[in-house]
């Protein structure tokens, strides 16, 4: 079995305050993993470590068996941002955004070749945005924007996809489409790590779950990990009402 993400005893601290300690995680090729935890539990820190934005103070990360920087050069890692992390008024078109997924495989001047255009077109088709390709980003709905960023990850042909709160503020159509795409990507041996606090989605289509609160509390098959005890531990002893209803 190919291992996509292997994090071993990861520690990250910012100026002395610990954001993550002893976090270990192994994700095989072809799986969808939900990462669940409260705000400040270290979800975004783990993403930052996986995208090379913070350097772990201890432990190591391997992606496809490579160091993070090497895996990035191989275009193995795609990050799909939260809507809040993006300036939606930025003057770029949908096509431009998706083309940015190809930059890593282009020459220094980033001049697209025919193959890049094909990859972008194909990705836009898969997220059903081809008709809107010339629209500016600001003219899209929240769900369409989300799909544009997913198309960027698809165009990049990454084998590891990191998604930050992908279901926040999306319409039903987008949600359904995204779920289908995740399954397709999984069958193409991609590994998808989804950070979310929406537990119902995790139950619906994640194969694996990792519960995070400054470290990896529990990790494994969704049915085994999603126990009331584990969840209350992840949410600081007090699982939110929504969650209590779902776990019974």
């Amino acid at each position, binding site marked *: 079995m190919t291992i996509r993400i292997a994090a071993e005893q990861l520690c990250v601290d910012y100026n002395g305050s610990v954001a993550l300690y002893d976090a270990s995680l192994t994700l095989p090729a072809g799986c969808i993993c939900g990462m669940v935890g409260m705000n400040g539990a270290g979800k975004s820190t783990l993403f930052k470590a996986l995208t090379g934005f913070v350097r772990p103070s201890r432990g190591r990360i391997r992606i496809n068996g490579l160091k993070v920087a090497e895996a990035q050069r191989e275009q193995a890692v795609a990050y799909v941002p939260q809507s809040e*992390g993006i*300036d939606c008024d930025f*003057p*770029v078109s949908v096509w431009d955004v998706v083309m940015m997924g190809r*930059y*890593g495989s282009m020459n220094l001047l980033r001049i697209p070749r025919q193959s890049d255009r094909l990859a972008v077109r194909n990705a836009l088709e898969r997220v059903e945005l081809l008709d809107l390709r010339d629209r500016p980003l600001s003219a899209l709905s929240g769900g369409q924007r989300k799909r544009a960023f997913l198309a960027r990850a698809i165009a*990049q042909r990454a084998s590891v996809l990191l998604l930050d709160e992908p279901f926040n503020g999306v319409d039903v159509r987008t949600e359904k489409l995204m779920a289908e795409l995740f399954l397709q990507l999984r069958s193409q041996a991609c590994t998808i790590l989804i950070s979310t606090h929406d537990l119902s989605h995790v139950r619906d289509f994640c194969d694996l779950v990792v519960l995070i609160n400054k470290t990896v509390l529990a990790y494994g098959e969704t049915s085994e990990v999603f126990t009331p005890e584990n969840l209350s531990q992840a949410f600081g002893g007090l699982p939110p009402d929504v969650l209590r209803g779902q776990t019974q």
Partner: protein
Amino acid sequence: MSVVALLLEPLRHDFMVRALLISALVGGVCGLLSCYMTLKGWALMGDAVSHAVLPGVVLAYALGLPFSLGAFVFGVGSVATIGFVKQKSRIKEDTVIGLVFTGFFALGLVLVSKTRSNIDLTQILFGNVLGISAADIQQTWMICLVVVALLLLFRRDLLLFCFDPTHARSIGINTGLLHYLLLSVLSLAAVAGLQTVGIILVVAMLVTPGATAYLLTDRFDRMTWLAIGSSVLSSLLGVYLSYWTDSSTAGCIVLVQTGLFLMAFLLAPRHGILCRRSS
């Protein structure tokens, strides 16, 4: 007097031809850069860098070096100081910026009063494009060529860096390098800009055209052309205006820029306040 005569009459003076050419050149270059500044939200950084170059200019004059060299060193130095203080302390970035650039600027003021040279402070603070020397023209040309070359070479990477640095990073692009590249280009452009409008107003050259263009379009390519166009137009019109009215050239250039911004603010097709209200 006809309009044509009004426009042609000043061209009889060599200093006016030079001023128009250099202002238009600097305006165009700063206009291009201003797109990145507005999108990245670096207006304050532009203000900081342009003020912080003062001690560099004074020292370079005193040592007989090209003043752009001193300005560049101190411009980049101020940015490095800002980065260092921010990283090593709990003070917020805007405070650090305010603190560092005023410190550098104050050092410059003291140096001006302590160096025995014929530096004209007013000239540095408010620009003197009508009296620009041949050597300064040459320097400005070189700076502008370097800035444009760098911006064109890295335009897509810089756009991505402004838009989504996390993605840039995750596909293996060196965002630290792009950060310093953009800051170096900013320092260079500030040096070129202070020739025409002086230290105090150079930030207008680095921000206003980009802001105006941003209100007029949702496409980056069009935004750059609009910014360059409005900036060049402001420079030319400003120089003429200052000639006709016998008033500060820097003031006139920036005033025209501000006027164009106000027009966009009110009348821009989609983002102007008047059109938005009626739709």
